[in-house]
């Protein structure tokens, strides 16, 4: 569903080339907001699979020093959707993650973290559906222990099987525009390309590919993995990503709650800049003050 409206930001520039914007306008879910892309608060809503989210920041729940810090960080981030993993019941576990997240009032996006095969990922997704009563799944199929990069063939296979079974699939993928397109072709409702390896904090290593993915697909693009600090999140949004997922960048920061606040602002600022439409990059200066009326001395 390509936008027929001209919204500010469609002539946005990455590098030297204008990017064609394939963003869905959210016409169905956002009503009149779709005309301008901006709501009353001056911010535009994100719609994934018909679900409107006013925050464009998704959080991972892993790596926080305590459940309390996690809860405080989620609140500071104003995120509405956080990922959770499924693991064996630990009889010694202190506090219930599900209860804490319910108190915060945030939506759960279960993931298939740790799965190495399509088979395991599909089974984990089915268990997650049972545990959390949601069809939504952040699909991860890891192909390498050191880099935690996705296993593309297994990922695609799992995505196809899960969408066939009625799941709402958000796959964690490489920054490969062709794979992103294939994932959408089999029914994924969004794509979550990595900026750099999980937990590396290396930011967006190939911004051109991220912009190409934004062009290649019509579903929301959620930059996932590699975010190190706020400027990385802002860059993702300036490149046209529809949302950013941050986990370690927040949970392992020296002050996670403060960083959550920083990420919230960065995502909002990046989105605003994207919709405002940046100036093109030029090699030579362009004067911002006209020469006309310049005084002549001597």
């Amino acid at each position, binding site marked *: 569903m390509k936008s027929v409206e001209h919204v500010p930001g469609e002539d946005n520039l990455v590098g030297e080339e204008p990017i064609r914007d394939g963003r869905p306008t959210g016409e169905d879910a956002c009503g009149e907001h779709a005309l301008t892309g901006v709501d009353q608060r001056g911010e535009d809503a994100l719609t994934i699979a018909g679900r409107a989210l006013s925050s464009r920041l998704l959080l*991972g729940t892993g790596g926080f020093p305590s459940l309390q810090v996690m809860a405080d960080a989620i609140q500071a981030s104003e995120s509405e959707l956080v990922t959770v993993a499924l*693991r*064996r019941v630990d009889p010694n576990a202190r506090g219930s*993650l599900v209860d804490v997240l319910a108190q915060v009032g945030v939506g759960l996006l279960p993931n298939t973290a740790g799965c190495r095969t399509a088979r395991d990922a599909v089974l984990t997704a089915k268990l997650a559906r049972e545990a959390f009563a949601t069809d939504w799944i952040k699909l991860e199929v890891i192909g390498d222990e050191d880099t935690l990069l996705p296993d593309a063939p297994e990922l695609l296979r799992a995505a196809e099987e899960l969408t066939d079974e009625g799941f709402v699939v958000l796959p964690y993928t490489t920054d490969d525009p062709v794979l992103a397109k294939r994932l959408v072709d089999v029914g994924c409702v969004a794509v979550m390309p990595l900026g750099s390896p999980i937990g590396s904090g290396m930011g967006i290593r190939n911004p051109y590919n991220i912009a190409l993915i934004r062009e290649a697909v019509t579903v929301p693009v959620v930059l996932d993995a590699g975010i190190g600090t706020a400027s990385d999140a802002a860059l993702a949004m300036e490149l046209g990503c529809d949302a950013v997922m941050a986990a370690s960048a927040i949970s392992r920061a020296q002050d996670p709650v403060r960083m959550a606040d920083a990420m919230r602002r960065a995502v909002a600022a990046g989105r605003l800049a994207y919709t405002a439409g940046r100036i093109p990059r030029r090699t030579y200066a362009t004067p911002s003050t006209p020469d006309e009326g310049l005084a002549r001395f001597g």
Partner: protein
Amino acid sequence: MIVNGRPSETPPGETVAVLLRRMGLAPDAKGVAVAVDGEVLPRACWDEFALPGDARVEVLTAMQGG
């Protein structure tokens, strides 16, 4: 019987609901899922499904991650 990767004293024929109770989980526990021999066992079956003596059971719950 193997429960969460460890040999278990669970007697054959015990229902999943009883097993969960012995593990300290409420029958209506939120965020819990059970797989038996690599297949999901829906919540609706927990009260009735009798675990075979050689069952491999996974009892999973939400954990911080992602």
